[in-house]
């Protein structure tokens, strides 16, 4: 086994095929669409309305198969929900608690401090329900893929009919953003899958952009404060650099 691992490393391995997982990258063309995200750039910030819509898309489209294990209901405050709204959202879920004083585990409505419950009890159940493929947890997906948000958006809008030259096996779907162009996830968004309360576009592109925005927040919830501190830090350190340099010039003036 060790020799095998080493041999594969030396030849810089192609992915080891997992049952039902996407086929190994075979050089298919990959399309990456670049979007103008509000969270990009030095002064980047999240768009709360878009994140709330994206959360709705997640709940109604993605959450049937994809967990978000690292997100607690209380975190939804970042999306602009108030305490009562978060309590109401949490209360729609049942979570296991216990043991009570009789030693029994019991189910109770979720509270804001609870993590979002997963759709499946474990990975095996997830695979059994998804043709052998494991729907990945989405908490970090926007950071766990190269070009995170652009990639997720491209993937969601990237479902097409396969070119005639390509044979797509049963249970696989053609996608022009996915490495190898064959993905085990059926097209999740067709447009108008979700009814928005605020009248925003429910086109494939609109829904995909919103859920991507939400997923980026989930992966990097501290992005706004990070960039805010960053601007102050860079400003301060620039002044510090200039002052140090001027002081250096002055002190060194008598050396030569």
């Amino acid at each position, binding site marked *: *086994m*060790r*020799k095998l*691992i*080493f041999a*594969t*490393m*030396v*030849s*810089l*391995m*192609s*992915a*080891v095929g*997992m049952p039902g*997982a996407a086929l*190994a*990258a075979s050089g298919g063309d990959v399309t990456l669409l670049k979007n103008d995200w509000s969270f990009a750039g*030095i002064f980047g910030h999240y768009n709360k309305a878009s994140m709330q819509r994206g959360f709705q898309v997640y709940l109604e489209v993605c959450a049937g198969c994809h967990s978000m294990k*690292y997100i607690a209901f209380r*975190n939804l405050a970042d999306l602009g929900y108030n305490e009562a709204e978060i309590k109401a959202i949490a209360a729609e879920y049942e979570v296991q608690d216990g043991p009570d004083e009789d030693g029994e585990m019991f189910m109770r409505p979720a509270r804001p401090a609870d993590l979002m419950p997963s759709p499946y009890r474990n990975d095996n159940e997830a695979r059994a329900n998804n043709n052998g493929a494991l729907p*990945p947890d989405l*908490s*970090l997906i926007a*950071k*766990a*893929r*190269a070009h*995170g948000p652009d990639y997720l958006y491209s993937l969601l809008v990237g479902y097409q009919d396969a070119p005639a030259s390509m044979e797509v096996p049963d249970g696989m779907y053609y996608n022009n953003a996915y*490495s190898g162009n064959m993905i085990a996830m059926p097209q999740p968004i067709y447009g108008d899958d979700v009814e928005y309360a605020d009248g925003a576009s429910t086109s494939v592109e609109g829904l995909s952009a919103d859920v991507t925005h939400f997923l980026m927040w989930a*992966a990097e*919830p*501290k992005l706004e404060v*990070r*960039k805010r*501190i*960053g*601007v102050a*830090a*860079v400003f301060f*350190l*620039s002044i*510090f*650099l200039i002052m*140090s*340099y001027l*002081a*250096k010039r002055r*002190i*060194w003036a008598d*050396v*030569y």
Partner: protein
Amino acid sequence: MSAAKFSNPVVRWIDHRLPVFSMLDHTANEYPTPKNLNYMWNFGSLAGLSLVIMIVTGVVLAMSYTAHVDYAFESVERIMRDVNHGWLIRYIHMNTASFFFIVVYLHIFRGLYYGSYKAPRELLWILGVVIFLLMMATAFMGYVLPWGQMSFWGATVITNLFSAIPFVGESVVTFLWGGFSVDNPTLTRFFSLHYLMPFLIAGVVVLHIVALHRFGSNNPIGIDTKGRQDTISFHPYYTIKDMVGIAMFLLLLAIAVFFFPNAMGHPDNYIPANPMQTPAHIVPEWYFLPFYAILRAVPDKLGGVLLMFGAIAILFILPWLDRSPVRSARFRPVFRIFFWLLFIDALALGYLGAMPAEGIYVTLSRVATAWYFLHFLVILPMLGVFENTKPLPKSISEPVLATTGEAA
């Protein structure tokens, strides 16, 4: 040791019994430093600063980290999401690791260019190589701790290298792992050692500085200081000059931490470790890529491992490979060309280490690897004999005065 020079009686009392103030005074005011050090001499203090940042942030991270295969990834996410400013501490730790290597690589190339490894500074140089080796081990083990996909598979690949050792290789690997695969015992021992080794580095840094202070810094001209006219006190001249470097370093670090915190990492490490699923491409952290390229350039496993470690080992004997009596590349026109070729070669190896080991990349890796060893084993010794060096100035103050005269 004259305790009387301090006017404060408390300082005098302490210094008489514990001469820390005399030591500080010696370092800051008496220790003679060549007056012509350029900004390339900033990287020593910057490396020291990096080590301090790593230890401070690391100790804080360890307070919230859990070294267990089932909880490590989750505990890092807790740090990122729930610990107050945990994201900041972790991003500083991650990015300073990369900056530490940038600084140390520049420090090493500075030493190569100006011949800082030559007599009487051979041990100073060798201690530096020891620090570099300890840094690599520490960084490697630190990268395993978040227990992401690259953590796990990087650990698997690198520890497997030791199985190339004849006869005892397999036993050595089992010993490193604490079992028969990279698993919980591997993670816990890596955590323990990752916490220990920075302090070993700090110890060797002390020796490095003691050795430095024996003969003082080398300088861009590479000739010994000839007296007071060639030197200035460390404080305030080099404290303020180092301050400029520190400000620049912190500014660039802040830009990385706050605006591109994951640019020098790999996205796969945000996927929890999965021993059943190998990533499409296993790549080490960027600062290991040149050595990774050397490893893969050799078709034989043991040969690759030997060359990879040999690439570092060769630095230990560098003072005896380069026999040219002239230190600084400024007076070595041919060496200077080969220095820059080596620099390009190292960058090329870094690039090739990130590319898949197939097609033209394999050939290029072999050429670049061969050149690396050719430089140290053939070119440097030959240059020591055949190179016509330029005449050296009589003293540091002479050319310094001359050049400033021209510039003005």
